[in-house]
């Protein structure tokens, strides 16, 4: 069989102001056979997206193909040498969106916000075929049904912002498929999505490929996705393909150190021995003596007063937006978090898992006293003294804030770009008037060493650091006040796999060295599995299951937890995702869960399912019937 796409010695350069010419892709060669899935793996900056852009002829203006050849042997159009064509050439435009299409990473931004879905999807078809308006509409509707839109006719007339993230990504895929291309390039198509939706999209791509026999070039850094979908794997590192071959060979016998390292850097899910992750570049964490000296020790009977943090019955509703003076009354409240109760014991790491929009961050903000809940109680055990956190104000609140700090998700947005690293790390100390100038100076240097940053970089600004380094600055800032409890709100979700491993290891080390307690929030189950002692699963503002890590991952009781676990792609081809087990997209609807777990939307509070103790620290939200079932 002849190859559909042949890339030979491709070289791509970028002209950058101030830096001259930077070469991004250096001599890449590969081929894709018709109907085959090839995965292109590499960390960010390795040049994998540039390869895709070169094939599609959509390189940024400052980039150009400096050498090599891209050849498309399409049965419809014949052989075309893409690399010879200008990006706006008529022949090139006839290929783009027609014989080869691309699906982008960000479903939020890759659709125009002011044009209807139907218009944007049908456009590529309208360009090629002299079709009437109704024909285009029918074709679009058919494609939308194909990608699993529940109501395609209605979707034609809706706008992107009216759709959820998963549906938007389906719309983007539909846009690529409308002309039934022979090659689909998917650039991190699931990175921005939740696991359950990711699994659905992967299944969709798989099914569509079976149906149309199109080839897929899948660009990703998620080895779990690769293991599930690809047949051939190309590994890119610094603009070169360092390893390539059939998937099973590559996963079984990785040769290049980069691939080996990549495989070791991924937290493995449901692995019994928690092997320490091996980041590609290890960071050295030292110092910390000053910090550990400054921690007030706990009295022997300090833990008798209760767990470090106990939360009981916390709820918070948001009210719909009101539209000015003459608007009608505010719409009924949507519960963001509902009836949240849990405890965090001193020295443990409690994982909190849930999909986006389930209320994880709202809960973190309530615990930080940034949002006041409508009801509920939060108690903090400060060395034997129980503090009512929600009742604190004034000086007592300031005092308590030193005990609990937070690490944020976005390493770019959470650091003020106008402050130096020193200013950022020292700020909590200044706010709480801790120490003299010399002591602060010494402590900041100690903290820098602790998180593995160079002491002499203390006067640089955040922009001169990478994402992982910035996240370490955020960690240093959170630790400056020697807190007892640290809330980690998705601290690694914005980072590359290899960097993620660094940060996870760092957090683990810091916990044991400084005796910290974590509430670790993440949507990534494998990451939670790596760090947490106990895990709490949240859905639609409610906690549905709390259990020790092992029993939750090996013996999940709640149907939502089960779906969540099934949907995680394992970076090992021997354990593929079971697409047949993944139901339709209603898994996160509490009204659709089976009997003892159902939460009907308008149930009266008394008969609603509550957290029920299954023994061994395992709690699940269900009605009383469950326990009787279990006993019987």
């Amino acid at each position, binding site marked *: 069989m002849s190859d559909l796409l042949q890339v030979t010695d491709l070289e791509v350069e970028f002209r950058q102001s101030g830096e001259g010419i930077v070469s991004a892709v250096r001599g890449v060669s590969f081929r894709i056979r018709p109907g085959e899935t090839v995965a292109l793996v590499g960390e960010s900056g390795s040049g994998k997206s540039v390869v895709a852009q070169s094939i*599609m002829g*959509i390189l940024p203006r400052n980039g150009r193909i400096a050498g090599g050849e891209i050849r498309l042997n399409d049965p419809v159009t014949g052989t075309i040498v893409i690399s010879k064509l200008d990006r*706006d050439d008529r022949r090139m*435009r*006839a*290929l*783009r*969106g*027609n014989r080869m*299409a*691309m699906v*982008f990473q*960000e479903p*939020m*931004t*890759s*659709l*125009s*916000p*002011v*044009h*209807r879905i139907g218009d*944007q999807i049908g*456009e*590529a078809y309208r*360009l*090629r075929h002299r079709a009437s308006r109704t024909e285009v509409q029918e074709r679009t509707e058919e494609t939308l049904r194909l990608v699993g839109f529940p109501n395609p006719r209605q979707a034609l007339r809706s*706008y992107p*912002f*009216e759709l959820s*993230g998963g549906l938007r990504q389906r719309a*983007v895929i539909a*846009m690529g498929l409308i002309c039934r291309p022979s090659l689909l390039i998917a650039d991190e198509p699931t990175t921005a999505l939740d696991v359950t939706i990711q699994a659905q999209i992967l299944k969709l791509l798989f099914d569509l490929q079976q149906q149309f026999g199109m080839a897929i070039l899948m660009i990703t850094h998620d080895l779990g996705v690769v293991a599930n979908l690809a047949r051939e794997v190309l590994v890119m590192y610094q603009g070169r393909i360092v390893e390539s071959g059939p998937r099973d060979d590559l996963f079984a016998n990785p040769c290049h150190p980069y691939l080996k390292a990549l495989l070791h850097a991924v937290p493995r899910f449901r692995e019994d021995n928690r092997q320490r992750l091996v980041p590609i570049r290890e960071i050295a964490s030292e110092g910390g003596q000053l910090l550990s000296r400054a921690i007030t020790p706990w009295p022997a009977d300090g833990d008798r007063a209760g767990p470090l943090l106990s939360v009981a019955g916390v709820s918070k509703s948001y009210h*719909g*937006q009101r*539209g*000015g*003076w*003459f*608007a009608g009354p505010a*719409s009924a409240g*949507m519960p963001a978090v509902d009836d949240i109760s849990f405890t965090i014991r001193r020295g443990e790491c409690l994982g909190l898992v849930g999909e986006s*929009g389930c209320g994880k961050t709202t809960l973190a903000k309530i615990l930080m006293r940034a949002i006041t809940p409508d009801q509920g109680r939060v108690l903090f055990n400060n060395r034997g003294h129980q503090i009512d956190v929600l009742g604190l104000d004034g000086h007592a609140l300031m005092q308590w804030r030193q005990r609990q700090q937070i690490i944020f998700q976005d390493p770019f947005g959470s650091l003020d770009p106008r402050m130096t690293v020193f200013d950022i790390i020292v700020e909590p100390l200044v706010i709480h008037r801790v120490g003299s100038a010399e002591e602060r100076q010494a402590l900041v240097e100690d903290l820098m060493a602790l998180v593995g940053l160079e002491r002499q970089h203390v006067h640089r600004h955040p922009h001169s650091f990478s994402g992982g380094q910035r996240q370490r600055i955020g960690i240093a800032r959170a630790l400056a006040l020697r807190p007892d409890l640290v809330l980690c709100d998705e601290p690694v979700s914005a980072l590359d796999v290899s960097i993620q491993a660094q940060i996870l290891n760092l957090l683990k080390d810091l916990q044991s060295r400084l005796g910290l307690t974590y509430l670790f929030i993440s949507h990534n189950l494998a990451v939670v599995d790596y760090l947490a002692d106990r895990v709490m699963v949240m859905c639609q503002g409610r906690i549905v299951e709390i259990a020790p890590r092992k029993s939750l991952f090996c013996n999940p009781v709640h149907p939502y937890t089960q779906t969540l676990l099934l949907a995680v792609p394992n970076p090992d081809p021997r354990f593929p995702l079971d697409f047949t087990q993944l139901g339709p997209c209603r898994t996160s609807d509490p009204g659709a869960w089976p009997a003892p777990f159902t939460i009907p939307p308008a149930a009266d509070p008394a008969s609603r399912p509550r957290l029920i103790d299954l023994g061994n620290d395992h709690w699940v939200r269900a009605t009383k019937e469950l326990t009787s079932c279990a006993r019987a």
Partner: protein
Amino acid sequence: MISYLVRRILIMIPTLLVISVIIFTIIQLPPGDYLSTMVAELQARGESIDQGRLHFLRETYGLDQSPVERYGHWIAGLAHGDFGWSFEYGMPVRDVVGDRLLLTVIVSGATVLFIWLVSFPIAIYSATHPYSWGDYTLTLIGFLGLATPSFLFALVLLYLANVLFGLPIGGLMAPAYQDAPWSWGKVLSILSHLWLPVIVIGSSGTAGMIRRLRANLMDELNKQYVVTARAKGLSPTRLLIKYPLRLALNPFIADIGAILPQIISGAAVVSIVLSLPTEGPMLLDALRSQDMYLAGSFLMFMAVLTVVGVFLSDIALALLDPRIRLGGGVRR
């Protein structure tokens, strides 16, 4: 949508009332009133005025009443279309203003049109060919337009127009039509005079608009959805018009409300230099001589223009941008 429109129109009433209070207060703020200014002027010339007559005038003009009473009179009159009495001209404000309002609207409207017609092609060229020679040249001209005082520009253009084309200096129509009733000839005469003030008044606005549209468009051009559209195989021109340009327009539609009063007040100096029979010069005079009802009416007129302009631009935005029309209360 209907209820929204009604709500917006209703909310304009309290807004305008508040504005009228502010306008009235500000006009009242300088010490004295029209009569005391007049007396001071007469005394400076060595003349004197009969106290009895002064008292009579004060009473007839209502200047002996408290400011609150006077405001009440004024606002009640406005509601009936009675704009009050101009002291300076000795006749009703409505007659003093006369054609000036219409001419102001004509000049301003033509200026807005000029700004849009000239700045759009230039801005689009600049944004799609950034850092090219064309872009730099146009940018330079734009900065010159921004930096040149418009009255100076007006004088230069007047001189050139007179010397090169033999056009009459100043005014908005040939002297023969000055007080003549409206006729076809008068309209033609206005049109032939209009281009000069429009260019002068519009030059800085055009330059500003080019800069902002270029920046907006360049932002939009780098967005992901543009790449998506390019990946569909759209031709560059179609792509540009359908996606980024459409989104880059939003700020300008939002600007319509603010641009009208800005042009009118900004044009005052130019209007004086060019002796245009528009609002600006008259407003300036009225404010100087404390001809309070005349000044107040002009300011109210501008306030109405702003409020209505903002209203229109909000509606246009809602029509153009579904996020505004449908997005209220939708959470991601």
